[in-house]
């Protein structure tokens, strides 16, 4: 039984700090996804857990062991790499069994475990092939097989799907989800693809510039992003962020408006807010609907008709672009004037430091 505990974990390259104190607790059996833009430190953090990067500061606990200086082979982890990293000169059988061979596992036991992994991944027929004779999807499967035979307490995945084509990616994603269900082990998964994050994760960790921005379930992150970064990163198309000004604060009701936005009252945590403050109103493209009494008016600038929904890009008087996703197929003319409204309960306010003012 092994969860993970990261306590103020830090990583410097010389004077450059790339991981700036990460605190994170992962329960046994949880599927955790690290997500963020490239260069945010998500892969570095994963490699620190794996033991491929030295830990500069803080503590890494795997289960009840402090693992800062433990060799990778002794951490009870297995890792799947982005480019598979299969040994080109070994057959699939030897690739999967390499770790066991190094650990001097008896031959019979080794053979049993290799075949067991092959059965789970339905690749028994591939065992005698060399990696060069495999397709991308099959290689990924072997890489996962190599991880399974180690019977790790924690699986680590470093962007495992990004070298696969779109169709195969969806398929393999589902297989990984099933693998997690079957094995029930802790899995840590790094990706820059938010769809992968949303579909696979029990818990998403959003990282930016070496700092954890938010930790939560996929729906929490979608509905209640903690700050502007998460709001902009999770959800597709991105959440609209409209600059506005506070007109009045009445208890937990904040009234805001701007050139693009008629007066709107939103429930929010209002401490410290006062009339005249700049504020950002966030509203998801899906929350906007045409409404003659709506509080946003603009001109249709671009229409993408997808059949089941229609993406409309609207130009507001202040120049801010607004993305709207409408249900069904709508025939809109370019330049046409459009009035949109939204349920204030689905909008969020962000103060000047970018922190979400969620209602308590």
């Amino acid at each position: 039984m092994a969860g993970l505990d990261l306590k103020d974990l830090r990583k410097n390259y010389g004077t450059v700090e790339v991981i700036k104190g990460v605190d994170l607790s992962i329960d046994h059996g949880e599927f955790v996804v690290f997500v963020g833009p490239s260069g945010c430190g998500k892969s570095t953090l994963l490699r620190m857990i794996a033991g491929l990067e030295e830990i500069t500061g803080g503590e890494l606990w795997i289960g009840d062991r402090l693992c800062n200086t433990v060799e990778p082979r002794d951490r009870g982890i297995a890792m799947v790499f982005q480019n598979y990293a299969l040994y080109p000169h070994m057959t699939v059988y030897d690739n999967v069994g390499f770790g066991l061979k190094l650990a001097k596992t008896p031959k019979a036991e080794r053979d049993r475990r290799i075949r067991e992994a092959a059965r789970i991944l339905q690749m028994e027929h591939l065992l005698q092939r060399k990696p060069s004779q495999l397709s991308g999807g099959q290689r990924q499967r072997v890489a996962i097989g190599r991880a399974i035979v180690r019977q790790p307490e924690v699986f680590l995945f470093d962007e495992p799907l990004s070298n696969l084509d779109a169709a195969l990616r969806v398929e393999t994603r589902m297989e990984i989800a099933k693998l997690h269900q079957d094995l029930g082990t802790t899995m840590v998964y790094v990706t820059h693809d938010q769809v992968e994050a949303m579909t696979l994760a029990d818990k998403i960790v959003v990282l930016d510039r070496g700092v954890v921005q938010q930790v939560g379930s996929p729906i929490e992150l979608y509905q209640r992003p903690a700050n502007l970064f998460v709001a902009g990163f999770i959800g597709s198309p991105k959440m609209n962020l409209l600059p506005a000004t506070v007109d009045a604060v009445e208890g937990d009701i904040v009234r805001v408006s701007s050139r693009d936005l008629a007066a709107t009252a939103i429930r929010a945590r209002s401490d410290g807010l006062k009339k005249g403050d700049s504020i950002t109103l966030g509203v998801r493209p899906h929350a906007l609907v045409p409404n003659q009494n709506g509080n946003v008016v603009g001109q249709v600038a671009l229409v993408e008709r997808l059949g089941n929904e229609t993406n409309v890009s609207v130009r507001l008087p202040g120049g801010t672009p607004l993305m709207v996703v409408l249900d069904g197929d709508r025939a809109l003319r370019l330049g046409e004037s459009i009035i949109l409204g939204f349920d204030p309960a689905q909008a969020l306010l962000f103060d000047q430091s970018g922190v979400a003012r969620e209602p308590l």
Partner: protein
Amino acid sequence: MSKAGPIVGGIAAIVISALVFLVPFAFIILTAFKDRAQAAALDFTWPASFNLWTNLVEVVTTRNWMLVTAFINSTILTVSSVTLLVVFAAMVGFILARRKSRWNPLVEFLILAGLMIPPAVVPTIWLMQGLGLFGKLHGLVLIEVAYNLPFSIILYRAFIATIPRELDEAAIIDGARPLDVFFRVILPLLWPVTVTNIVVQSVGIFNDFTNPLYYLPGNQNATVQLTLYNFQSQFNTSYNLLFTNILLITIPPLIVFLFFNRQIVAGMTAGAVKG
């Protein structure tokens, strides 16, 4: 006309190249077949009688089968030097390509220095005498390794840089220690350059004359190149035997050339361009 050009040019090139490059080899072969009297004329003529076998027997058995000893010595020298070169150069190339450290510029400098600087002969002899390596075959093996390391390292480093680092990391996670990573994962993957290295270095070391001359005096451990050099004065009047000897020591490189032509050319050009 546009078709005739390459053909006429080609025929001219074949004739000229044959004259310049093949006639000397033909001369070696013809002379090796002749008897002593005909060979002494140094002519480019057909052998009056075919004496290759008698010539061979005489060359091989002369001076108490010295040529056989020499072939054995040259084989030991070549095989052991190349083996050590391959392993040690690959190890250096591996660390040099993988680990960025402040020692790297120094190592790179030493590699270039090794390619350029002529070895200091007498101090080397003095040092080898002190270490008990002078005049010993294993001493010469170490000399060949020392002098040829830079070239081999350059060949290896360039190739290792193209092997993805994730392979090392996958092996580390699989529980491989540094020696496992190197010998079980990296070294097998280096096989193409290793072949190049083996071929290029073994031809060079087998043909080496200068270093055996300096560091391996004495008849009982002569190499084939030294033997040929010594026969030059001994067989001054028996050109048939001298050229039989030349023919014999040209055979190993010829075999290598026939089988590994491509690797030799690739290795020599790659090493040269990078060096």
